[in-house]
C-alpha cells in the first residue's frame, strides 16, 4: 500500500510543477498587464510600480524568484489590492468555499446514494424511473440555470429564503448548497444505481440469498461494499467539479469565496492572484484525486493485496 501511495505522490509532483510553470508563463504571455487599464499613469510611476512587483526583470528571473517564494509558502502580494497578499485573500475565501463545498458534497452523497440504491432495487419500475428522471433533470440543468431559477422561485416569488451572502442571514446557505450539490447528486445517483445493479446481478448475491439472509442484510452488507466503489472513485473528479461549480454559484449568490475571487482575478489580470489561486487549487485537486483513487483501490481486497506486494 505504501509503495502505491508513494509512487502516486511522486507522479503528482511533476503535475503540480507543470501547472505552476504553465500558468506562470501563460499569464505573463497574455497581452496587457495589470496596470494597463488603470487611469493614465506617469511613466516613471509605472516603472516604479513594475520594479516593486519585479515586472521589470527578465521573464526567467521572475520565474525563479516566484519559485523561491513559493517554496516558503509565500504567494506574493496581490496586484489589484496593494497591501493585501495573495495568501491573505486566499485564506479569507477558503473557509467559505470549503464549507459550501462540504454541504454540497453531503447533499450529493446522501441524496445521490439513497436515490441510486432505491432505484437499483427495482429496476425498470416506477421506483426506478422516478429517481432516475429527476437525476437526469439534475444533470441537464446546469447550476447557472438552477441557481437563478431557485432564487426566482424561493427568493423572489415565495420570499422564503435569502438570495445572497453567506453566514449573514440565517438560511442563506441553503440555496447555494442545493444549487451546487444537485448536479452531483444526479451523477452520484446514476453511478450508484449502475454500481448496485452490477453487484446485485453477481453470483455471490445469489449465494447470500440462498443462505436465508434477510433482503436488507443482503443489499447493505453484501451489495453496498462493491456497489459504491464507483462512487468513491468519482469523488476526485467531483471535487474538481465542485470547485469549478463554486465559481458560478458564488457569483450568483454573491458569496465571498475563493471561486469568486478567482474569477475576478482572471478578469483583472491580477497576476499573482491568478497564479496563487491556480497553484493552490490545482494542488488540492491533484491531492484529492490521489486520495480518491487510493481509497477506491483500497476498498477492493484483490487490488489491496496487489499493492501490498502480495499475490492476487
Amino acid at each position: 500500500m505504501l509503495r502505491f501511495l508513494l509512487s502516486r505522490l511522486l507522479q503528482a509532483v511533476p503535475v503540480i510543477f507543470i501547472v505552476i510553470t504553465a500558468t506562470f508563463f501563460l499569464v505573463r504571455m497574455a497581452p496587457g498587464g495589470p496596470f494597463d487599464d488603470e487611469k493614465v499613469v506617469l511613466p516613471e510611476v509605472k516603472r516604479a510600480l513594475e520594479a516593486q512587483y519585479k515586472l521589470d526583470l527578465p521573464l526567467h528571473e521572475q520565474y525563479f524568484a516566484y519559485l523561491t517564494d513559493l517554496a516558503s509558502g509565500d504567494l506574493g502580494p496581490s496586484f489589484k489590492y496593494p497591501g493585501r497578499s495573495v495568501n491573505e485573500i486566499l485564506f479569507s475565501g477558503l473557509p467559505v468555499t470549503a464549507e459550501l463545498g462540504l454541504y454540497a458534497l453531503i447533499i450529493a452523497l446522501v441524496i445521490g446514494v439513497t436515490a441510486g440504491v432505491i432505484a437499483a432495487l427495482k429496476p425498470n419500475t416506477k421506483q426506478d424511473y422516478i429517481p432516475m428522471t429527476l437525476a437526469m433533470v439534475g444533470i441537464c440543468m446546469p447550476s447557472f440555470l438552477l441557481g437563478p431559477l431557485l432564487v426566482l422561485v424561493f427568493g423572489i416569488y415565495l420570499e422564503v429564503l435569502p438570495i445572497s451572502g453567506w453566514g449573514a442571514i440565517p438560511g442563506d446557505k441553503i440555496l447555494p448548497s442545493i444549487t451546487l450539490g444537485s448536479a452531483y447528486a444526479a451523477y452520484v445517483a446514476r453511478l450508484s444505481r449502475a454500481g448496485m445493479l452490477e453487484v446485485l446481478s453477481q453470483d455471490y448475491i445469489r449465494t447470500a440469498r440462498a443462505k436465508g439472509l434477510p433482503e436488507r442484510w443482503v443489499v447493505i452488507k453484501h451489495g453496498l461494499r462493491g456497489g459504491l466503489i464507483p462512487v468513491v472513485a468519482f469523488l476526485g473528479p467531483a471535487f474538481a467539479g465542485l470547485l469549478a461549480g463554486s465559481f458560478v454559484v458564488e457569483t450568483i449568490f454573491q458569496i465571498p469565496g475563493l471561486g469568486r475571487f478567482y474569477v475576478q482575478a482572471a478578469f483583472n489580470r491580477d497576476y499573482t492572484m491568478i497564479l496563487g489561486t491556480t497553484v493552490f487549487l490545482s494542488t488540492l485537486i491533484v491531492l484529492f484525486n490521489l486520495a480518491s483513487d487510493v481509497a477506491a483501490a483500497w476498498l477492493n481486497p484483490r487490488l489491496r493485496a496487489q499493492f501490498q506486494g502480495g499475490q492476487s
Partner: protein
Amino acid sequence: MSLLNVDNLQVSFTTRNGTQQAVRGVSFSVEEAQITAVIGESGSGKSVSCYAMLGLIPMPPGRIDGGRVIFDNKNLLELSESELRAIRGKDIAMIFQDPMTCLNPFMTIGEQLIEPLLIHKNLNKTVAKARAIELLEEVGIRSPAKTFNSFPHEFSGGMRQRVMIAMALINEPRLLIADEPTTALDVTIQAQILKLIADLQKKRGIGVLFISHDLAVVADIADQIVVMEQGVVVERGTPKAIFESPTHPYTRKLLDAIPTGQRQSTTDHSAPLIRVNNLKTWFYPSDSDTPVKAVDEVSLTINRGEVLGLVGESGSGKSTLGRSILRLAPITGGSITFDGTDLTELEGRGLKEFRRRMQMIFQDPFASLNPRMTVYDTLAEPLLLHGICSKRDLAKHIASLMDDVGLARGFIRKYPHEFSGGQRQRIAIGRALATKPEFVVADEPVSALDVTIQAQILDLLQDLGREYGLTMLFVSHDMAVIRHIADRIAVMYRGKLVETGTAEEIFETPKQDYTRSLLASIPGAALGMPTA
C-alpha cells in the same frame, strides 16, 4: 416418506421473445440420506427446477405455473418469502458451480461463513467463529484460523469450493442442493471434491440433490439418477440400471456420447512433421519480477498423420504450447521445426506462407468468431487471403466447405449469434480447414459444448482428420476424450512435460505419479466404464 418430493413442477419465463416453458411437469424425489443426481444438458431445466424450489428465481421474468414441492410436510411453493428464508441456509442449503464468483470478494471468508449461524441460530460472534473454524477443518482446509481471516481471492478454486461446502453444512441442513459443484474445477480437484461431498453426506446422513451434465461424474456417487431433457424427466433409475439397460432414446444418446474406447491406430505414424526443442514461453508480468513459466523447456515430436493428445490441468501450459507452435504466443527460447523449417526465425511473408499450412480451432465457439461477420465472410477470408480460389468460385468453395463440416448451406448469410454452440464450432472448423492445412491445433474444441454435441464434433474432427490427411495436436483436460481420439499422448504439469507415450502405454502402464493421479480422477471408474 421422501425427504423432498417434487410433484409435477412447472416453471416458465417471459422474455423479449415470448414465454418459454423451462420446466414442464417434472417429478422426482430425494430420499433421506441418499444422493439423487439430476442429469441434463443446457436447456433441460435441471437448474431452474432446483432454484425455483427455493424461490431463488427472480419472479418477474420467472413464474411458477403449477406443481408442488413437499419438504417437511410443507409445500415450498406456497410458502411466503420469509418462511422460505427460514428454511434456506438452515434446513436446505445450496452450493453452486463457480466458486470464484459465488463468494463475496469484499468480505473475509470468516465473515461470510458465520452468517448462516448468526441469522438462523442467533449465536454470538465468538461461538460462531469457533464453530466455523471447526467446520473449515472438517472440509479439509489446513490452516482454518488463517483462512477465516483471509479473502476469497487468495485461494484456489478447490479451496473455495470447500469453503462453500462448509458454509452450506454449517447449520446442519437435512438437504443439500449442489448445482454442478465440480464442473468448473480441474479433474484432480474434481475427484477430491466429489469424494468430500460423498464422505460428508454419509457421515451426516444428509440427502443430496446433485445437478450435473456429466453422467460419468455422478455414476460413482449417486443412489438414484434422474435424466431430464427439454423440461421433462425422461428416465430415472439406479446408476446400474441406467448404464446397463437405458430405456429412453435420450438416455441412450447421453450414454453414447461419453467418449469411450481407445483409438485404434491403423497406420504407422513415424515420420516427424513437427519437432519442438527445449521450447520456452515465459511471460513477464508488469507487477512482479518473477516470470510466469508457461512452457518450460518442453521437447516433443509430432508425427505426420497422427493425433497427439496434449493433456493437463489448468496452469499446465498446454494451451500456451499449442499457441506457441502456431506463433501465437511469444517464444522466449528454444525452437520449433515444421517440415524442416525453423518457425522461430520466420517473419512477415515467410510466416504468412506457413500460416496457411497450420491452423487452430479454439475452445470457445462464442468468442472465436467475429460477431459482425456472416458465415460467408468468415469462410471467405482465409480463401481470399491465401489465394485458394478466385472471387468467382468463392461461393462454390464455401458451399462445399459447409457441406464438409455439416452445416446447412442455407445458413451462409447468417451471423454467429444466430447459431448454437455446436454449429458455431463447425463454422470455426470450416475456417481452419479452408486453406487445406497440414497441421491443426485443436485447443479444447469440445469443452464448451453439451455432451451430446461434443460427441458429434469429435466424430466430425476424426472424419475430417482422415479426409484431409491432417496431423493434429489435440489439447484437452478431459482424459476420456483424449483416450478416444489420440494416437499418442503427452502429459503436462506446470509448464513441464511429464510423460509421453502411445495411448496404450499411458493408460495401461503410466510411469509418472502425476499421470497416475490424472488417470485415477477419471470419473466413472467405479462403474467400470467400458474401455473398448
